[in-house]
């Protein structure tokens, strides 16, 4: 059998394969470029970008938990101006879609971010981060309130023609409500899940381990929750879903795809295996060859048939 067709379209963005980097776990791509050609990715999702530079949260920012990690990086980034003026040029020769994750405290900040990025031709789409658990006064707040989410996405939609992928928070009672609100407000796709809010305590110092007290849980520990949410959301919405949360292997990625995700993003796995993304792409292709599947699209929602 010839190489299978792994291509897929996410809200108007054409991907040659369905595997992207997860925002915040892959820097601007340079770090993993030391191990392999980053052009292998389906799309590059760069770290959360804010209007002003952010210094991030005090250390410790990472603590390992059973099959997972808690982080409280706090969106440390040099700000959107720096990104446009300095970082963007490294992507000018790139052939893969560049998706910029945008985040803020106020609705207005998201809108200004979208306005600033709208004319940047290297940017293929925006991932609207309404779900960061590590930023006070906002971030996740937009993603946990249906009306807030709707208003925010509508506001961003009004100022940009770039495809919008809205990143959802799992820290809600019913994720489908926020998903439908984002769709209704004009999102082109959804990505889920962001990290689950958690914490750890050092019993010797009798204090929280993380400098920011609370952090976001990621890694294999969250996979069943993420998978369930992808299943629930893809049942309700008509726009494509990008699944993520604890994907370590091609098998994990295939579970999300069969649950209804049209593409997947890989985050924490990169830290353990720097070749995680190319390994997963190869593994999906291998599965397709083994099972005589010519087009990747046949696998999307495969577990839903008759469900």
């Amino acid at each position, binding site marked *: 059998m010839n190489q299978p067709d792994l291509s897929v379209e996410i809200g108007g963005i054409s991907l040659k394969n369905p595997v992207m980097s997860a925002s915040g776990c892959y*820097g601007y791509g340079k770090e993993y470029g030391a191990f392999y050609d980053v052009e292998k990715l389906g799309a590059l999702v760069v770290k959360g970008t804010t209007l002003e530079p952010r210094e*991030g949260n005090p250390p410790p920012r*990472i*603590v*390992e938990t059973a099959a997972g990690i808690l*982080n409280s990086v706090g969106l*440390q980034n040099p700000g959107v101006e720096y990104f446009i003026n300095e970082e963007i040029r490294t992507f000018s020769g790139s052939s893969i879609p560049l998706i910029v994750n945008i985040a803020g405290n106020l609705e207005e900040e998201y809108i200004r971010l979208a306005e600033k990025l709208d004319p940047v031709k290297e940017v293929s789409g925006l991932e609207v981060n309404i779900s960061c658990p590590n930023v006070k006064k906002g971030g996740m707040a937009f993603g946990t309130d249906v009306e807030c989410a709707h208003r925010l996405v509508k506001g961003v939609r009004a100022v940009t023609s770039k495809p919008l992928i809205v990143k959802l928070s799992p820290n809600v009672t019913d994720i489908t409500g926020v998903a439908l609100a984002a769709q209704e407000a004009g999102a082109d796709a959804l990505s889920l899940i962001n990290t689950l809010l958690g914490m750890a305590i050092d019993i010797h110092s009798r204090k929280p381990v993380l400098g920011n007290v609370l952090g976001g849980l990621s890694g294999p520990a969250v996979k069943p929750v993420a998978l369930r949410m992808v299943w629930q959301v893809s049942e309700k919405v008509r726009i494509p879903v990008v699944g993520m949360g604890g994907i370590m292997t091609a098998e994990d990625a295939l579970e999300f795809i069969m649950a209804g995700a049209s593409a997947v993003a890989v985050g924490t796995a*990169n*830290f353990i295996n720097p*070749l995680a993304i190319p390994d997963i792409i190869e593994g999906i292709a291998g599965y397709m060859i083994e099972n005589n599947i010519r087009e990747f699209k046949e696998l999307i929602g495969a577990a839903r048939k008759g469900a």
Partner: protein
Amino acid sequence: MLFSSKSEIVQHQKKGPALFRIDLHAPEICGEARPGQFVHLKVEERGYHPLLRRPFSIYDLDRQEGVLSITYKVVGLGTEILSQKRQGETLEIMGPLGRPFTQWKEDQKIIMVAGGVGYAPLNFLARELLGRNIKLEVLLGARKEEELVGEEDLKAMGIAPEIAVEEGPRGFAGRVTELLKRKLEEESFHRLYSCGPCSMLKEVTRISREKSLKGEVSLESIMACGVGACLGCAFPVNEGSSESKLEVSIGESSGPKTSYQRVCVEGPTFSLEEVF
């Protein structure tokens, strides 16, 4: 160039109640590694507990044989699993990572201060410095005698380290920083290199500053990616820490302005002025 591969355990020796030395066959990394750099090891092959890799300073290397050595102390689950690995088994290794120690051509006389297993990155540096015929003095400290690292290896290189053991009975009965203070009263050095617990490094920096002695430290941090992508190992670094600017900031009550830098990329080695 960064390498990620499997490496075979050539030798694994117990050096103390909780101290081990592991020798790994990693010729590609050996070809490029510099003193002060580290490797990221995966100790759990199949499962997800512990999930993350563990960073270890390069203790020594034999370029001809392609063997890289690490000296580590068992402090938690990761190092405990590592300590049970046997000769002939393989480990996934990434490296060389991080910024090496800076070496200055004009230096003739150097002092090193190590706290326990903090000697790890200094051993490789000592070997290189001695190869450049630099006069080297080494102060090794520990709380207990069994926690001392490096004495044998230094002696094999022809260096007799001065020892400070807080609980005695060997060497100077007290902290290694006290030994440093006395040493600097008597002699002067061109440079200092140090690694150990943060509290020790702070004191080393204070003492060095009094004597206008410059140098570098190697910091330890919990890390996730080890390559600069996750920003998990951030440490507050004094901004614009060229000496002239530093003098101005020290005089201010608010202290120097800091920004978070990555221990895995901008470090693990930093100048004294940058971090304390």
